[in-house]
């Protein structure tokens, strides 16, 4: 193997500098501020601040609302990921099997991705609105009283559907690309050997798109945990009774609306630790099962 050696000690640092500066200014510095803030108790105007050590953390771990938020976030992230990935794989397989008009369907299915999360949220708010929405009207005809304003289950279902819907287009694109890169000869050979469509899907197609699936798994979990903020804000605002109050929303509400910076800081630090842990788990263990 041929190795190139750069004699200049400074050049690599210079080339890295812009990226390092950005990482420091936009990531390390604010993260350090959040960590520092989480050890303080401060009034809103910042006139008085006291160092309280771990108190903000102990308070959080002692608070049923926070533990509820942890649980809601976990269930929410898993539901959104399964729903959006499962459904888009189904659509991708369907489109992949098409000989004509696959292009048209692909274009149509990608459209929702162009909708801003807040707009999507408002859209679903209208469709599901118990008073003026169209869906509760139909559900009422079949005897189901939809009311996400007071029913926790309905509200949770609403934010899961709205968030998953938003992500389906994105997943779909990647799945279609993944499916199309599988050589047709492999599937044909299996078919000749007598493997049915289901068998072919699970033994050939699925393993071959595992890199795509793994990538999407990471992206979708991050999406469900962070990017769904706007959907929640415009549909349920975390309610009713905390049923849809995922962690990012709680950080925002306690910090910006409630002006409780210490607690909000501690929450974002915990959130950061969770993301780090998830990343480690995904790349250490899940990625081992991926065939490139």
């Amino acid at each position, binding site marked *: 193997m041929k190795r190139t050696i750069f004699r200049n000690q400074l050049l690599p640092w210079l080339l890295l500098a812009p990226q390092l500066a950005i990482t420091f200014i936009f990531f390390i510095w604010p993260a350090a501020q959040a960590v520092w803030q989480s050890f303080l*108790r*401060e*009034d*809103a*105007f*910042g*006139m*008085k601040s*006291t160092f309280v050590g771990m108190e903000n953390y102990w308070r959080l771990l002692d608070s049923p*609302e926070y533990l509820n938020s942890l649980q809601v976030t976990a269930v929410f992230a898993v539901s959104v990921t399964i729903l959006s990935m499962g459904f888009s794989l189904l659509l991708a397989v369907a489109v992949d099997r098409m000989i004509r008009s696959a292009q048209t369907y692909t274009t149509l299915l990608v459209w929702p991705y162009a909708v801003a999360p807040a707009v999507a949220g408002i859209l679903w708010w209208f469709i599901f*609105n*118990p*008073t*003026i929405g169209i869906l509760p009207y139909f559900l009422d005809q079949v005897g189901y009283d939809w009311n996400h*304003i*007071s*029913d*926790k289950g309905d509200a949770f279902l609403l934010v899961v559907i709205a968030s998953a819907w938003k992500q389906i287009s994105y997943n779909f694109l990647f799945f279609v690309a993944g499916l199309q890169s599988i050589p047709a000869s492999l599937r044909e050979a299996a078919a000749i050997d007598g493997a049915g469509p289901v068998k072919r899907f699970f033994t050939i197609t699925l393993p071959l798109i595992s890199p795509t699936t793994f990538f999407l798994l990471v992206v979708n979990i991050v999406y469900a945990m962070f990017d769904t903020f706007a959907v929640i804000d415009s549909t349920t*605002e975390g*309610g*009713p*009774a*905390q049923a849809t109050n995922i962690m990012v929303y709680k950080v925002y*509400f*306690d910090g*910006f*609306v*409630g*002006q*409780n910076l210490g607690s909000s800081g501690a929450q974002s630090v915990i959130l950061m630790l969770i993301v780090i842990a998830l990343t480690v788990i995904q790349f250490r263990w899940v990625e081992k099962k991926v065939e490139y």
Partner: protein
Amino acid sequence: MKSLFTASAVALALSAMSASAQTEVQWWHAMGGELGAKLEEIVKGFNDSQTDYKVVPSYKGTYPETMTAAIAAFRANEQPAIVQVFEVGTGTMMAAQGAVIPVHQLMKDQGAAFDQSAFLPSVVGYYTDTDGNMLSMPFNSSTPILYYNKSVFEKAGLDPNTPPKTWAEMEEFSKKIMESGAASCGFTTGWISWIQTENLSAWHNQPIGTLENGFGGLGARLSVNGPVQVKHWGNLKKWADEGIFKYGGPVGGDNAPPMFYSQECAMIMNSSASRAGVIANAKDFELGFGMLPYYDDVEGAPQNSIIGGATLWVLSGRPDEEYAGAAKFFEYLSSPAVQADWASFSGYLPITQAAADEMAGFFGENPGADTGLKQITLNTPTENSKGLRFGNYVQIRGIIDEEFEQLMSGSKDAQGALDGVVERGNALIEEFQAQNQ
């Protein structure tokens, strides 16, 4: 939105032209839409009336957003001289000693004309310290009233000119309306926290917390789980189960007005300031106004309702001439003509007696427009009906909504839900006390 852009473009162009002669006074506010346009008009009136100062209004979003923006700006030393803060932010603002200049002091320091006794006691009482000094300038104060559908009342065989006075009548009328098929629900409400908890307590002369509802100091604690409040929440749950009452959602209750406009519910309790909106949407039926209902077996009821809306706070750390401008502007703002104009346009309450008198003609032409004013001045405010002042109250309002939702979904009873409000709310108040002591 469009008018806002034009207005700010005009403001920008003007500020570019007028250069150094005038002192600019920044005013951050939360009045969007038509109220925002009216506010700009009022400011223009002031700017045109003299040449020394120029008040520059900027719209900063919702009440919480405006308050947050001002606090963040203060921390960055970029604060405006005047900021509009909603009533539940009062506790936070007044605890921020050194960050705000109390209005009574501003007016005295600047030698401006200021007579505190000219203001309506129930309006100004909310914003005074324990010595009775005014801390912020009332601008837009409202109070909840009852709106009802006269056409539905007539169809149900009820007298369209008699709104229900008591909660017993509320139930009785609702049942009649539902049985006759005139509407499918009796009533709904905006603001569970403000109307069905805080105002309910004041209206029945019941305390919300200790130490004069928090006016007495940071050591106050919530006590909103008293018998009257428990009875009322219990009734609301019972009525919800019977379909008499429909819940319109947390905070302001976004889903409540559509139920009233679509004639699904015959009555709604909401802010007097939503009057213009209600009139605009009540096209297919005749509209009636009434006071909030009360329980006639509670001694002292009805007392007086309490206000909502916002006041103007003055932030410290600006050059002195800006404060002279702010004081001049407050003089103008509380003048009877300006107040009467604003109140007639918006449905907010006039803040001074003189402005209320000025509106006599308007009230004569618009029956029911004075309901809020009558209700808030019904009796001299007591310790329990003066208002409330607790730290972290923005979050406590969120807790009230959540516990009410627990009640509605059946996971808690009224006593349990209100005990939950007290317990969780007090934890936040204790935290606030620790932060500010």
